[in-house]
């Protein structure tokens, strides 16, 4: 029995109708491969494609997401950087109340940068935004990842601390700004490794760079975990007078 052909046929039967031609294409291609090892290698890849074929809606969704990430993500990052001096001026150890100068600068900066990035993306020649968007998209995705990683703890901080909700204590913006930096930088540092793995390139091609990157990732992950461990009692609301 021709097991590779049988397995591929079984996987192809699960493909949606609009991708049926591609299933038949992979089956036809297999018929021309003679060496058993290469047949198995070819089938292993094709089965993955047959079981998880690219979704036309998904690709449009990705394009849409990439576009907006490339515009608003970097804007958010730069606005945070823009707001940092104001936060430092105010004092990192002093919580910042909603409606004060830093929050105003943060929001205003974000809007200004969003407009600037939108104009840059649309006004550059056709070939440039492709490369630029890729870079900006990673930047934006890192910022979003940072927000998602910090968001639940910010929610816990507010939810478990009635004094913040009542306005007696202010939200510790400085702490969360710092906490946001760790996962964002972690994402940016890990991106080249993930890209190399996805492109099926050898991650060991540049061993020194890889070692340094892993050291940085370890440092960032350790810093992030330490900060969480240190602040977790405050997020859970069980410690009065958190610092």
């Amino acid at each position, binding site marked *: 029995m021709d097991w590779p052909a049988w397995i591929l046929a079984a996987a192809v039967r699960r493909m949606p109708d609009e991708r049926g031609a591609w299933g038949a294409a*992979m089956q*036809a*291609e297999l*018929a021309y491969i003679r060496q058993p090892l290469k047949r198995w290698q*070819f089938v*292993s*890849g094709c089965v993955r494609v047959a079981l998880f074929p*690219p979704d036309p809606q998904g690709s449009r969704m990705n394009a849409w997401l990439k576009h907006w990430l490339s515009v608003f993500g970097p804007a958010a990052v730069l606005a945070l950087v823009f707001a940092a001096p104001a936060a430092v001026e105010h004092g990192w150890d002093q919580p910042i109340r909603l409606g004060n100068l830093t929050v105003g600068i943060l929001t205003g900066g974000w809007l200004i940068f969003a407009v600037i990035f939108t104009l840059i993306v649309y006004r550059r020649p056709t070939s440039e935004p*492709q490369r630029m968007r890729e870079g900006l998209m990673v930047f934006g995705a890192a910022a979003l990842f940072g927000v998602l990683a910090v968001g639940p703890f910010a929610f816990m901080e507010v939810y478990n601390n009635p004094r913040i909700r009542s306005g007696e204590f202010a939200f510790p913006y400085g702490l969360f700004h710092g906490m946001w930096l760790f996962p964002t930088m972690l994402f940016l540092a890990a991106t080249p490794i993930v890209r190399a793995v996805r492109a*099926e390139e050898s991650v060991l091609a540049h061993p020194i760079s890889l070692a340094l990157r892993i050291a940085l990732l370890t440092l960032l992950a350790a810093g992030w975990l330490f900060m969480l461990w240190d602040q977790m009692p405050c997020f859970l609301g069980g410690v009065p007078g958190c610092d």
Partner: protein
Amino acid sequence: VLRSLAEDPTGWRHGYDLCQQTGLKAGTLYPILIRLADRNWLETTWETGISAGRPPRHLYRLTATGLEQAREAGVVKARSSKAGRLRLRPRMGES
């Protein structure tokens, strides 16, 4: 993949041939081909005139849009791809 397809834009290529040329595995190559076809960068057809007992292969080549995009992405050299091919003898008029 774009570079491989753009090397001979008029010629039809099949999947395993592209796997070997690009060094990509089928699990990587076919999603790329599918997405290129979705965007009308890739033209597909089925092989004709094949010997009995074997199924016709699916063939691929870049559309005009795909070739234009490949040029914009910088994967197509300014000169014709034939200029880069190894020739055993110089052309007439070349020293």
